[in-house]
């Protein structure tokens, strides 16, 4: 957990990771059983497929205090439901580009393809993403002030 080290030492970001059941969630499992660490502040939400993630899920995560949201799914072409992640790719490309257009830091959002065999990649991606969001600091632009702790 001490892998996160930037100037912003006190700040521990809240990260929500949507992981598809068939690839990325298994990838996270593999990371665990291979004793590869990833930051504990990554909260994984298991979804049947990355295309289950409605854009409002991402917004809701930000509203409820997430500082970064990452979506993980099977590699394009490997979707358990054949084409699900192709739709995710278009949807999230548009959503993230739009959030960026509204001035919400683009470093807070990411899509990564992680297969069930890529435990090492899962751990590396999460470490990298947490580092990136930690450097950015608290999410103030797209969060609901009412859910913040005093």
């Amino acid at each position, binding site marked *: 957990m001490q892998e996160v080290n930037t100037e912003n030492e006190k700040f521990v970001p809240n990260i929500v990771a949507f992981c598809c059941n068939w690839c990325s969630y298994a990838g996270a499992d593999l990371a665990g059983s291979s004793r590869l660490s990833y930051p504990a502040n990554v909260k994984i939400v298991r979804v049947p497929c990355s295309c289950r993630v409605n*854009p*409002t899920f991402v*917004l*809701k995560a930000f*509203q409820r205090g997430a500082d970064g949201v990452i979506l993980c799914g099977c590699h*394009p*072409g490997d979707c358990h439901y054949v*084409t699900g992640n*192709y*739709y995710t*790719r*278009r*949807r*999230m*490309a*548009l*959503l*993230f*580009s*739009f*959030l*960026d*257009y*509204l*001035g*919400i*830091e*683009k470093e807070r*959002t*990411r*899509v990564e393809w992680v297969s069930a065999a890529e435990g090492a990649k899962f751990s590396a991606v999460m470490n990298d993403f947490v580092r990136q969001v930690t450097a950015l600091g608290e999410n103030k*632009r*797209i*969060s*609901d*002030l*009412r859910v913040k702790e005093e």
Partner: protein
Amino acid sequence: MNALENAMIEKARDLLEKGVVKRVVGWERGEFAYDPSPATFESAQSLESFVYNDFCGANLSKYLIKVSKNEGKTAVFLKPCDTYSLNQLIKEHRVDREKIYAIGIECQQKLDHFAIEKIGIDGIREEKYDGDEAVFHCVDGEKRAKKEDVVLLRCLTCKSKKFAIAEDTVVLHEMTESCGDRFEEVRKLSGMTADERFAFWQNELSRCIRCNACRNVCPACTCIKCVFDNPKSGVAAKANDVPFEEQLFHIIRAFHVSGRCTDCGECSRVCPERIPLHLLNRKFILDINENYGEYQAGEESEGKTPLTSYQVTDVEPGDAVRKGEDR
């Protein structure tokens, strides 16, 4: 314009009397010259209050969802850009093609009464176009204004003067297409830094009073039960308690219509706070055009939309966001 109005009334009367249609959707004279409102006419007598002038900016397509559920055919007057909305509604099975009689009508740019008010013209009794100028006969005499200062924003960058769908047309004069770049503003915003963009949108969106006018008028917003009316959705707040509320509302709405928005500009036209909502939709349109090929919603009445189709070689989300930065 009077000749055009008469031609339209004739057409409507003819259709009603012959029994081709049961009703006609058009505009009704308002209290003032500048507030005609959409209305349904069911008899030849009722056509007395029918009006068509340069203030008839309203897109009548959306009214068809409800009106065309009634028995018999419905005729509707549509300006060229409105025909795209109707086509999109047919594509989404919101309107039954068989029950519509679409009449394409001439449009020489429509006026924005907010813009007119802003440059200090009020008490308008009558109005007509004279070349590049609009001439207003007001209570205190004649006033002139440059057309580009008083027309609706969407009319500065005409989508097309073609009718995407029309059984019949009433066009007396040639229509001039204003051909500005409709993505100019979007590109300008994309060129700013994230901080500047955030400040810009914060300034615009914080004026939102959640009146829901943009949603109510939008021809792409046709859900029978809207997420913003469902208390269980968690986004149905009717007041903006925190800045997040209005952001959330506009992000969800813009995403919901992405790939289906025909860029009719009704949202910006009706916004009482003058928020440039069309810039949100155009961002999606620009992204779709650049990443997935040129697409104009409502051009066809069947086929797939960009978000219900895919290509194996589509751009990765991270690259798409970076591309937006470089623009």
